[in-house]
């Protein structure tokens, strides 16, 4: 008797799984979307999925939003189950996107920008600054776009409104020398002029200073031009940043090198221990629960990144990107999905559900304000190179600034090391 029951249950189970298997087969296309769970959260991705499924009956979006998306993506690639749409940025420790780019495994997205959304081509919807951004065209001799720009963030020089500004004790610097010139006054008050959350936050300030020297220098910088760091012009710029040593908030390096310590540096800024720091607009959101410690804090002032000789006018732009892999199964559908992110309706949804994530389209007040205040957005994207063993350019340039500041590395040696990393990468540029 017992055996019979078990047997029939088994049979039933087999039948059920068989049925569900066939049921899946009859279902039409599914689109696999992998998204990194950033500070913007995952709600807007859920909303995008729902709206895309509604607009495209018969399409099922398999959405995976995770903080560990790099591992998931690598596993998926290793088993040849390529996702269709990927939202993940460059500049992360694991360098997954860099490797994919370096292996020429990205799908050309030129046709994406011709797709029509709300009756208009995507290339007419996306703001020109972001549409023509170098971040979309990673390869040196190929002007095709391989990424789509999403969620742009703006980096500038942030100052403490309590102490800096018109009618306040300290003035807003236009150049780095303006900033250094206020040292005596700051020392007298026992305040430091500068801090950074981590030296990586200088990745907009350094390029802006380079661009201020000359646009050609900036071009050489992003193209890893051979011997660039032996040039006096470049040395001048980097030596300026080495001078931060004299004006920096003393705990900066200790904080910048400990886990989560960047928050402490930002707190020091709020507490009025440091006057300026490079940071993005997101810092307001990030520090909302931390600033309680200082009731007097009036708020963040944002201004352009200082220049070297001319008055600074640039804001750094940090564009996040989505891409499609060459090996993806549903490339057309993937492009349709990406295009749908720019529809007027979804732009609104993303903003509401994505903790204030912006889309680079017209009518976004934060982006409009930049132009209104006379700022220009500077995008700095390096040409794609092969991953080279033992060479980490960003570490050499930015992270090692910590060592210059704590005195374990001289400015000359620092510049020399950056130059070496630069020259090696020059020899490994992807064609």
């Amino acid at each position: 008797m017992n055996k019979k029951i078990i047997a029939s249950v088994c049979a039933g189970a087999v039948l059920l799984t068989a049925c569900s298997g066939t049921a899946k087969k009859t279902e039409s296309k599914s689109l696999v979307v992998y998204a990194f769970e950033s500070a913007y959260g995952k709600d807007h991705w859920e909303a995008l999925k729902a709206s895309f499924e509604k607009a495209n009956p018969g399409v099922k979006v398999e959405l995976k939003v995770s903080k560990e998306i790099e591992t998931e993506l690598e596993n998926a690639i290793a088993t040849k189950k390529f996702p269709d749409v990927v939202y993940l940025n460059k500049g992360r420790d694991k360098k997954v996107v860099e490797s994919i780019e370096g292996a020429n495994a990205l799908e050309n997205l030129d046709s994406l920008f011709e797709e029509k959304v709300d009756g208009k081509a995507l290339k007419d919807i996306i703001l020109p600054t972001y549409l023509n951004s170098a971040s979309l065209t990673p390869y040196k001799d190929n002007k095709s776009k391989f990424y789509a720009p999403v969620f742009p963030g703006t980096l500038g020089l942030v100052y403490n409104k309590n102490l800096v500004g018109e009618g306040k004790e300290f003035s807003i610097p236009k150049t780095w020398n303006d900033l250094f010139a206020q040292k005596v006054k700051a020392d007298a008050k026992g305040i430091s002029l500068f801090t950074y959350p981590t030296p990586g936050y200088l990745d907009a300030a350094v390029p802006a200073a380079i661009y201020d020297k000359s646009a050609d220098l900036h071009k050489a910088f992003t193209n890893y031009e051979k011997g660039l760091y032996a040039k006096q012009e470049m040395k001048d710029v980097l030596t300026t940043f080495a001078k931060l040593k004299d004006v920096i908030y003393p705990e900066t390096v200790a904080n910048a090198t400990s886990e989560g310590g960047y928050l402490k540096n930002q707190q020091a800024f709020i507490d009025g221990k440091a006057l300026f720091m490079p940071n993005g607009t997101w810092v307001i959101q990030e520090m909302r629960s931390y600033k309680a410690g200082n009731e007097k804090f009036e708020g963040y002032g944002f201004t352009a990144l200082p220049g070297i000789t001319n008055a600074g006018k640039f804001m750094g732009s940090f564009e996040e990107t989505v891409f499609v892999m060459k090996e993806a199964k549903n490339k057309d559908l993937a492009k349709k999905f990406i295009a749908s992110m720019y529809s007027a309706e979804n732009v609104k949804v993303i903003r509401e559900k994505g903790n204030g994530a912006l889309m680079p389209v017209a009518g976004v007040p934060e982006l409009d304000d930049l132009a209104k205040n006379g700022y220009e957005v500077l995008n700095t994207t390096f040409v794609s190179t092969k991953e080279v063993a033992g060479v980490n350019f960003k570490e050499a340039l930015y992270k090692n600034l910590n060592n210059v500041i704590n005195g374990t590395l001289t400015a000359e040696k620092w510049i020399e090391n950056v130059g070496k990393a630069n020259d090696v990468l020059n020899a490994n540029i992807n064609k």
Partner: protein
Amino acid sequence: MGRKKQQNLFVFFALAPAVICFFAFMILPTVRIFLMSLFEVNKYDAAQTKFVGLNNFITLFTGKIDGTIIPEIPLKIATSLKNTLFLVVIVGIITLFIAILMASILVRENLKFKNLFRIIFYIPNILSIVVIAGIFQAIYEKEFGLLNAVIGFFGMKPVDWLGTGSNTIVLYSLAGAMVWQAVGYYMVMYMASLSTIPEHLYEASALEGAGKIYEFFHITLPLLWGTIRTTLTFFVVSTINLSFVLVTVMAGSRSDNEASVILFEMAKQQSVQGYAMAIGVITFMFSFGVSVVMNAITKRETYEF
């Protein structure tokens, strides 16, 4: 089928699973590490993976890449090996000393709450190493950390336990955490070994008028020697492994190599697999070498009872 043949067949099938697993999960990956270290691996396009001979090792040892020499590369590897060796030696010696002392006190002396102590000493071993790293981060924290609060109570200046710079003590701090987590485990091992030493040896020596310390050095230590030698190899392997997690969590974003250990250097290179595997080969040789040396210098005549 003859009985002998049957027996052989049984032995074969009984051993097969273990041998297959050992081969698949130990031998094969190890061989693969050696092989992969000779390639420039492209994860996304296997066709682009190419054989580069000893290039990865040349880069590691001389810093030579595409004609440019970056002396920092071999320097970094050397520093990380030095740090690893330092941790192996320091943590090994201190743990060994404390563990044997505790074990012999707990086994030989008539203490109250013996079992309670045993449990307390063993607890760190149950905790995940990540948790331990978290605990010690809270202890060592400069502004609000436990340790600085305690020494502040005695009027001492706060110390930057995990600090950077040229005179950092971060390695000693890491060693402290590693000793804390390892002592219990080795203590239990030594206790097991100690309890097999026959009581009559101690009785006899006591009758002859030997003191506790004399007994320790002339009975306990020689008879424990075999176990100690075995655990030395454990020290090497576990220190290399654990130091990686501790450094990653507690000093991971250190920009410089003051606290870098060899596996950490390897983990940083995950985008260039072949090169990372070359570091893996060096790690393998290193741990193998250290174990051999340790075994050689601790070789003594074995005593039996």
